[in-house]
């Protein structure tokens, strides 16, 4: 296992623990925590604070029958729960987002491919496949962008990102992630607004590819 050098932030982990992170970002954080024991330990710390806040907070009496009703149901067969195991480079939360199926890649040209996992008004999350030496189409974003490397590595104006590293980029960063020599770079990328391409042709393609 190579060392992970780029982590999520405490603010993101606290927002994730408290449930106040949009689904696309929550997926990247859950995937990164699956790969990074430092952030797993940090998340545990945030959960401990959450537990302390809950324990010390105001109590509300439960109605009389609640306890008996819960105790009565202990032997009920719980509804079957579908779980997705890690598969090759994809940690289990990514497999869950893929519903257990392989990614459905769509070409973006120049060997670059994407597989959109979800996209709506609140944001989007996708897998990107970038062959060695190729760049992501030049883009800027209107909010935050989280990019987690699952295979290979990329470099951009801010540094080098290998497997498990996550880049947290804000709208002031106009960057050109380029896959390094080696296996194709596969990333999980979430943005809270559609990416804006800075060159004309991808901009025309944007409505078609929803990138």
């Amino acid at each position, binding site marked *: 296992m190579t060392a992970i050098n780029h982590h999520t932030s405490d603010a993101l982990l606290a927002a994730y623990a408290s449930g106040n992170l949009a689904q696309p970002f929550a997926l990247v954080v859950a995937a990164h925590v699956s790969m990074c024991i430092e952030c797993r*330990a940090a998340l545990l710390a945030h959960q401990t604070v959450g537990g302390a806040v809950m324990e010390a907070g105001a*109590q509300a009496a439960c109605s009389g029958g609640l306890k008996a009703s819960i105790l009565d149901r202990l032997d009920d067969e719980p509804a079957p729960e579908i779980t997705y195991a890690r598969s090759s480079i994809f940690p289990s939360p990514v497999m869950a987002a893929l519903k257990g199926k392989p990614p459905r890649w769509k070409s973006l040209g120049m060997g670059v491919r994407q597989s959109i996992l979800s996209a709506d008004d609140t944001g989007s999350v996708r897998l990107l496949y970038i062959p060695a030496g190729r760049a992501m189409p030049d883009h800027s974003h209107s909010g935050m962008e989280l990019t987690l490397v699952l295979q290979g590595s990329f470099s951009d104006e801010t540094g080098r990102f290998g497997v498990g590293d996550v880049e947290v980029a804000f709208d002031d960063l106009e960057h050109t992630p380029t896959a390094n020599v080696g296996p194709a770079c596969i990333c999980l990328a979430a943005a809270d607004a559609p990416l804006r391409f800075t060159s004309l042709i991808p901009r025309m393609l944007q409505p078609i590819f929803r990138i």
Partner: protein
Amino acid sequence: MHTDLINLKDVGRAYAPPRKDMHPVEPSAEMNQQTVWMLAVRDGRDRAAFGALFDFFGPRLKGFIMRSGTNGAQAEDIVQDVMLTVWRKAHLFDPHRAQVSAWIYQIARNRQIDVIRKERRPVPEELKLPETDEIDASQILAVEQDAAQLKAALAKLTPDQRAIIEQAYLGELTHQEISAQSGLPLGTVKSRIRLGLERLRHDLKGLREQ
């Protein structure tokens, strides 16, 4: 710092090789009551202990859930779901890593968000535990001592700081708002990270050696 010295000593003790004479459940008198109940539920499927957990956490959960704007009836539905999850997923509770309240907090937040958004929250992969059900009381006590120090630190915050922490962990602040809170004592949180990290490294090492 004094507190760091205490923790380092505990970490050292926690990494002594597991002793052969350890018994699966050996709740120590010093162990906090919720941990003792939770271990009885996990290892003994003890309904009385589960009832005691409900008596302790039920009203706290309901109060916590209602604070984020859920009405009483729906809050009780969520309390029921959370407590049934505690019973059914008790095997995932690991007192060497987390306090009962931390574990239940995350179950409660996940459930409440799933109910509100009507979608499943992405959750991290479960870390495979080493194949042992041995209880290392000193490690559990270290985790509890850590949490007790954290609670003491929270109690010492100014009312403003405490209000911000509460809002953050009740899910009322976005990550941008949390980052913008320069007065938020995240250092308190960060000082706790090291012990958990050591434990995870220890467990992973144990897995590789199997």
